[in-house]
């Protein structure tokens, strides 16, 4: 039976944003054919209800107490079983860490090619798709030569959108036939974070600094601005290599990928590997002394000048506005 299967991640009874984007991509691929979702373990049933308005007709929930802790091979086994049962034309997941991991396992088990971080897919036999390279600074058009397409949706590049008035999907629970080998790699322990402050990955506003900040102490003015905006402080790779800030603050292709409402880039020139980390931002403001810096090709707004003067001025203006 043709149709498309989408792996949906969820937490605390709600579907992950990136998975909703994956569902939107899956809808594109399905082009009218039925859309089935796979949710794994606890909370799956509750989360499944949301999916109706996104076009999912059937939600398969894999239930087994051994699935309580994440195990990528076990999730891949669940996907496998549904593939055998439903015979979809494609399996789609979010381009999240887990989504990419699980589908790569499926591809390895079934000797199928897997296209990660896809932004769109066309019709045709075999289908032509567009996927992301260099963290988003380059796109690749490719063709998938396989009876079953394995795809993950590039984060924040496919718009999630509900369809009109659809009912909640049918929910079918199933117990996958897990084998011990599937559970060798499984989370055995969770260590809570000790860090305080706004998490970079979740912040609504990020104030980020690059080479132009000049020193570790130079970040003081950025921290003040961040405090005014309840923002997280990030930095570019040069800053972490120089030892001014820890790697956990690094925004970039190999650091944290952020998707705030506003990303403020201070003294950052705009290398592609940095842009890869912040292009998820809705809007970007660049503060730079150089009007020709590459970052101005990615930013929505810019202020040209000395950041050591501009950043405190913005902080002061915010304080003034607050007092009024």
């Amino acid at each position, binding site marked *: 039976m043709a149709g498309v299967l989408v792996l949906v991640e969820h937490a605390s009874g709600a579907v992950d944003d990136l998975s909703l984007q994956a569902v939107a991509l899956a809808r594109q691929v399905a082009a009218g054919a039925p859309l089935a979702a796979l949710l794994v373990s606890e909370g799956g049933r509750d989360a499944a209800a949301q999916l109706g308005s996104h076009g999912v007709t059937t939600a398969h929930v894999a239930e087994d107490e051994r699935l309580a802790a994440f195990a*990528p091979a076990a999730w891949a086994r669940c996907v496998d079983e549904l593939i055998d049962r439903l015979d979809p034309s494609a399996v789609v997941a979010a381009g999240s860490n887990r989504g990419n991991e699980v589908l790569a396992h499926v591809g390895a088990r079934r000797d199928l090619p897997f296209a990660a971080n896809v932004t769109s897919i066309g019709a045709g036999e075999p289908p032509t798709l567009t996927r992301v390279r260099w963290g988003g600074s380059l796109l690749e058009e490719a063709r998938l030569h396989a009876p079953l397409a394995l795809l993950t949706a590039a984060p924040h590049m496919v718009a999630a959108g509900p369809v009109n008035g659809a009912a909640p999907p049918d929910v079918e629970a199933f117990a996958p036939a897990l084998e011990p080998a599937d559970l060798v*790699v499984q989370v055995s322990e969770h260590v809570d974070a000790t860090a305080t402050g706004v998490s970079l990955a979740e912040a609504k506003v990020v104030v980020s600094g690059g080479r132009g900040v000049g020193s570790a102490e130079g970040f003081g003015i950025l921290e003040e601005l961040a405090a005014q905006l309840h923002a997280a402080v990030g930095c570019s790779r040069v800053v972490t290599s120089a030892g001014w800030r820890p790697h956990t603050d690094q925004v970039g292709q190999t650091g944290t990928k952020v998707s705030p409402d506003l990303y403020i880039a201070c003294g950052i020139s705009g290398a592609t590997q940095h842009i890869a980390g912040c292009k998820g931002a809705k809007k970007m403001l660049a503060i730079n002394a150089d009007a020709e810096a590459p970052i101005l090709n990615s930013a929505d707004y810019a202020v040209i000048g000395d950041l050591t003067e501009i950043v405190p001025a913005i902080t002061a203006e915010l304080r003034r506005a607050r007092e009024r």
Partner: protein
Amino acid sequence: MNVLVCVKRVPLTGGRIVLTDDEQAIETRHLGHTISPHEECGVEEAVRIVEQHGGEVTVLTLGPPEAEEQIRDTLATGAHRGILLLAEGEEWDAQATAAAIVTAVKARRAAGDDYDLIVFGNESADSGGFQVGIRVAHALGRPVVTGLKGIAIDGGHARCEQEVGGGRDVYDVPLPAVVTVLEGINLPRYPSVPAKLRARQKPIERITPERAGARLEKLRLVLPPGQGKRAEILGRGPDAAPAVVDVMRELGVA
């Protein structure tokens, strides 16, 4: 401990990407090359593991003959030997790459060299397929843990740590295993010049692998739309602060 680290030669693109006329690759004339930051950290981690537990680090890459430069760099940071799988010209897709690596690993195993740990970067800087490590692990029948920010080897087991929202997830897997690591797991050392000179003498085995047909076939590369977008200049110097705050209000962040 016998550790294999797989790396890939990638260009340093700088602020903008320029494609070759045939749209098949990035124009790399005048560009320097390196390996992905994830992989640099992977090499450093491997070297630290053998410094602690004894053994050797082998670095493998699939790439053009110029990729020897990258292998020599890793040899300078403490790896012992290299394997260069020569793939002239066209780039190979993830499945083909994984297959070639598996063939090389099996050949080494037949020669008596088995790897307790195989390390990959979480994804390559350029094609970002997120899958070569996992495919290699499956083909060799070994467990694979990805996206690691911490590894500790203890008597035939690897304790692996992943950063997730709200903390870290820990996995405990038996060796031999495959892991993929993220930049930030360590701070790679700056190689000394004597080490660089010695690296020139370390052995590199050259193999020309067979190539499987591309099943994720690259048609062409395209620059994303919106390149050459110009930011709206809100002003110059601190006088632009009120305009900035206005924008922030509009966006609902201030």
